[in-house]
């Protein structure tokens, strides 16, 4: 039985995983870089070890160092979270060699799905629909032309080793093909050290819909329904929801079966995600598989009532999965907003820095998975995600109402955040109608950037008055640090009390 888990990650996901460990009575080992000594995952863990300088290449990506810590601390297993080493087949292999359980699928499953051309081929063999295109690597312009004529424009040229939008080129006209092919190959070589590219039909106005799968060592594989992830900005997901507003029960069933077939084709163990593109006519195509826990897994947890991290750990421990396909039912509607440290008014520039104040929403149907606290300095080295706000409602519109309420309670100051931008999405008509595709943010940007806040002249004046009084207080304190009898206001008393608390 797994008794101690090293979590090879940081931020909200490290804490998410540790919470399930604590509920299972499993000890937790954190690893941290220089920038992360005061990070919450270090504070939350039972043990914590330093693994190197702040850049992740020198710490969170250092396989040897992490395996050493696992050995030193006596951890039975390593949970990689998402990002960092989570989809690194070599790391999964190294864990095996060192006698530590890697909480995730086999190195072979990771490698197969990590190479997009191999993954496509595997899916075709498993009878899972893929986007029309090449079955193998494109070597020459001539080959590319043949494919282009076969499937018709527009097409995408994509790096086989790629992901997250890198090494991708959209081709609208036949003339662009040659340049796009060269550009994609060169970018792929630079970014991944592998210039293999392939060609796919470009799906216009697609939905990005993914299926959660769960498998064990005994060949049992089930799916836990879909997540609709079409609200994206530059290939970054911003809002996810389940059920998808466009899925029918029939289509859900069909896609679910394809997802299970896809996972079976690589004897998948643990939790994974099959991403599909769905076109305007509800045709669906395999896009890629993420062989790890997904950022947006909590919305699935809420509507199907399964703790996915616990299932991962159980499967890694050799237990069969606790559910049968027929046990899985969606109840109600869940939605997630990602709260980023970024400034939407300033071209979404990242906004690391000192968190001066934070109040998180709570109450009925609200979950937050975060990691920052008052006084914490969000480092410049990692992901700008501060937290995930997950709500549940009996209906989609109930979930939206609750998300609005929760966002209005969310207060983070010191750094800029995407909260206002998310509020604007919640009041957007197309979003409320559930009629959107992956171009939603792009198309609606103007409306989403507008200032919709109700505010009469009073509210400006009240801001002014409060600052005015704060300033008067501040200068009077500076002039006479000893209390004067004149200042008997409540906030003066508060100020004094705070100082007393400090000394």
């Amino acid at each position, binding site marked *: 039985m797994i008794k101690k888990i090293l979590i090879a990650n940081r931020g909200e996901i490290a804490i998410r995983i540790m919470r399930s460990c604590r509920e299972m009575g499993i000890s937790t080992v954190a690893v941290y870089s220089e920038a992360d000594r005061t990070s919450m995952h270090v504070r939350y863990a039972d043990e914590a070890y330093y693994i190197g300088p702040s850049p992740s290449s020198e710490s969170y990506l250092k396989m040897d160092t992490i395996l050493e810590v696992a050995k030193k601390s006596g951890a039975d297993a390593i949970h990689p979270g998402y990002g960092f080493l989570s989809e690194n087949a070599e790391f999964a292999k190294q864990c095996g060699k060192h006698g530590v359980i890697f909480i995730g699928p086999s190195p072979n499953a990771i490698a197969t799905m990590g190479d997009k051309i191999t993954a496509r081929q595997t899916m075709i063999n498993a009878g899972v629909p893929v986007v029309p295109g090449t079955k193998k690597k494109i070597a020459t312009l001539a080959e590319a032309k043949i494919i282009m004529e076969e499937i018709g424009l527009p097409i995408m040229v994509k790096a086989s080793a790629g992901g997250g939008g890198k090494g991708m080129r959209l081709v609208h006209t036949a003339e662009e093909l040659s340049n796009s092919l060269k550009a994609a190959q060169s970018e792929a070589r630079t970014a991944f050290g592998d210039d293999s590219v392939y060609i796919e039909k470009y799906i216009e106005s697609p939905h990005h819909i993914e299926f959660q799968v769960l498998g064990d060592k005994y060949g049992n594989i089930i799916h836990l329904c879909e997540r609709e992830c079409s609200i994206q900005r530059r290939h970054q997901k911003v809002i996810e929801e389940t059920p998808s507003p466009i899925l029918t029960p029939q289509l859900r069933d069909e896609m679910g079966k394809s997802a299970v077939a896809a996972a079976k084709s690589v004897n998948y163990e643990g939790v994974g995600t099959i991403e599909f593109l769905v076109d305007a006519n509800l045709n669906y195509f395999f896009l890629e598989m993420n062989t790890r826990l997904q950022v947006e897994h909590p919305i699935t947890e809420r509507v199907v009532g399964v703790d996915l991290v616990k299932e991962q750990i159980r499967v890694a421990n050799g237990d069969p999965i606790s559910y049968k396909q027929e046990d899985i039912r969606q109840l109600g509607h869940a939605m997630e907003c990602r709260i980023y*440290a970024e*400034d939407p008014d*300033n*071209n979404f*520039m*990242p*906004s*690391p*820095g000192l968190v*001066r*104040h934070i109040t998180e929403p709570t109450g009925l149907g609200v979950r937050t998975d975060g990691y920052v606290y008052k006084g914490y300095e969000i480092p*410049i*080295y*990692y*992901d*700008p995600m501060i937290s995930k706000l997950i709500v549940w409602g009996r209906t989609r519109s109930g979930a939206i109402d609750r998300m609005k309420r929760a966002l*209005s309670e969310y*207060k983070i*100051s*010191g750094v800029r955040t995407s909260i*206002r931008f998310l509020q604007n999405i919640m009041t957007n008509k197309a979003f409320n109608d559930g009629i959107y595709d992956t171009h939603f943010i792009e198309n609606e940007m103007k409306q989403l950037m507008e200032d919709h*806040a*109700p*505010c009469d002249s*009073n*509210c*400006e*004046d*009240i*801001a*002014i*008055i*409060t*600052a*005015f*009084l*704060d*300033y*008067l207080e*501040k200068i009077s304190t500076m002039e006479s640090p000893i209390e004067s009898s004149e200042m*008997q*206001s*409540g*906030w003066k008393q*508060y*100020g004094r009390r*705070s100082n007393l608390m400090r000394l």
Partner: protein
Amino acid sequence: MELDIKLNKRIAKVKLIKRDQDNVTVQVDNKEYTLDIRMVEEHVYSVLHNGKSNNVEIIPGENLKKYYVNTLYKNYDLEIIDAESRYMQNRNIKDIAGELNIISTPMPGKIVRIPVKVGQKVTADDTLIVVSAMKMESEYKAGRDAVIKKILVKEGETVKGHQHLLLLE
């Protein structure tokens, strides 16, 4: 007590009329407000005005006279303009205007590239410096044609928010 307060582009005249414990009467331009105001948390005030309940967060800015103010629906940048600021402004107007010559970071990060040199002529929209934070690179561009007077940081250096990076002539 009377002060000017700048909120975005508006400059309001603010005057303390009366203060009785937590009940304060203040005039903003020509309008008089009587409010019940308390600091309830560090930097957070609860303000009752005509029955309306407002939570106002007052975050100190770069200097003593600057604030970020957050209300339920709005965020404001706010600046106190007192006798001292006015005096400074009158005495040495160039220095204030001169601020345009300083390129500084709005956010902390790491300097990736500085594609310009001291003495170099640049034109508006030329990239002066590239800063990386949270896996994203941001370019700072010249707002006008100018000559690079001084470079205050090095490539690879970690910078804070509001740190000065370059001086233009």
